[in-house]
């Protein structure tokens, strides 16, 4: 099918930049979720009332955007470019196939739904 779901996890303060870049690239919508990320960036330790503990999770933002397959490549690039700080913990992007998309308001499907 010709619609893709792009899942990107990025640093929270990069959200606005990424959102603007995607909008100017013609993305009309997205879903944003606050998540906790575990990865290479995690694991430093802190002390609470004298007891050490490892901070395994760091706050991240997950963006889910569905786009026509044709745009996917470009969207991935845009996110990569705008979410990048070069420092560890910048995040990942995953692309999945969508077999169907529907706009609830109108019932339109697939590309028309986006």
């Amino acid at each position: 099918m010709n619609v893709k779901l792009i899942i990107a996890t990025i640093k929270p303060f990069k959200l606005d930049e990424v959102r603007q870049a995607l909008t100017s690239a013609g993305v009309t919508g997205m879903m944003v979720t606050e998540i906790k990320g575990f990865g290479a960036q995690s694991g430093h330790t802190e002390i609470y009332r004298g007891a050490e503990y490892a901070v395994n999770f760091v706050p991240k933002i997950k963006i889910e955007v569905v786009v026509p397959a044709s745009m996917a490549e470009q969207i991935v690039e845009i996110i990569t470019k705008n979410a990048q700080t070069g420092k560890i913990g910048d995040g990942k992007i995953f692309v999945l196939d969508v077999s169907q998309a529907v706009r609830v308001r109108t019932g339109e499907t697939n590309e028309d739904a986006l």
Partner: protein
Amino acid sequence: MTLKRLIPTAVLLAALPMGAWANDPPGSLEEVGYIMTTLLFLVGGFLVFWMAAGFAMLEAGLVRSKNVAMQLTKNMALFSIAALMYWLVGFNLMYPGEFNGYIAFNFVPTVLEPVGLDSAAATLDYASVGSDFFFQLMFVAATASIVSGALAERIKLWPFLIFVVVLTGIMYPISGSWQWGGGWLSKLGFSDFAGSTIVHSVGGWAALAGALVLGPRIGKYKDGRTVPMPGSNLALATLGTFILWLGWFGFNGGSQLAMGTVGDITDVSRIFANTNMAAAAGSVVALILTQILYKKPDLTMVLNGALAGLVSITAEPLAPSLAGSILIGAVGGVIVVITVPLLDKLKIDDVVGAIPVHLIAGIWGTIAVAFSGSATIGAQITGILAYGVFTFVISLVLWFVLKAVMGIRVSEEDEINGLDMAELGMEAYPEFSKG
């Protein structure tokens, strides 16, 4: 009192004869003295009442969100129960007048003076029984609040409340009578101005016994390591600390028990200033110490530090100079920073740090009285031991009995899901997703 309300504007409009609703003035300076001391108890009393809210907020802020509603429930309930029990038996058990010095068998509810007491019938050289009862009542509630914090997040509601019934109705009044009731310890020369031992350590001992019988929260100590369980709302915890700090002016200042003379009110002023200094010193010391030891300051330790400073000065807030009070409070700050992790080493799970703050700092404050010369070190140690043994042993027994009879700890599943849903069926923050 209706008509009286008519006066002011009546006056304003000069429209009415006054006589009818006139208030009488005090008949003599003796009466003024009585009025002032009674006022001290009323103002001191509502300030100490406010501490109940302080404990509630502090504890609600230091438990995890899944147990907040239950912690709030316990604090509302324990204060109310303490009030009822202290009326029912506590007050007269604690202030029995003449008795053998150990236990008064004086199980009668409190009765106040008649309405519109005639000054001839009043204890002009003290204060009204109503104000004294109101003031004293607030102290016993504080003792119970200390216990609720230490045992949070795992104890069942009802067994806890039954313990509170006995603590506030029987245990605290009996041991309190030894000193404030004119019992054997007061005759022995023990000195505890506002209750570092009589109120705070007693609460701490009861909490310690409970923590031992109850055991630590699931997952608190894993393969030798202490697993932090951060409080869910440090803003509430800080608010609670400020409330307690404020209430403490009434706690210590009111314990001057007199405000009718230049000497007495000046002493009360001194107590206010000293109390404030000790708290400030405790918090600054905890701030600096945690910065040094852990490279980062620990807000919860700063809060505990201020409270430890307050507990430390409570045994003798009058005699020390401002400098002396700073020193006494500072040691309190050191105590929490050192003993909070220490308790964890011993696998004693004290959720809010009640034992370091109230028990250990309370002992320190009581010993410190000897330095200011208000009592002998021997008398102080005797008192500390007497209250410790009495409260700890009876509490231990009581906790074991409750455990045997009805169980004191919620099921593992309930503890994991949180007491709020398990025991109350409601959440404190139902709309906010938890981590």
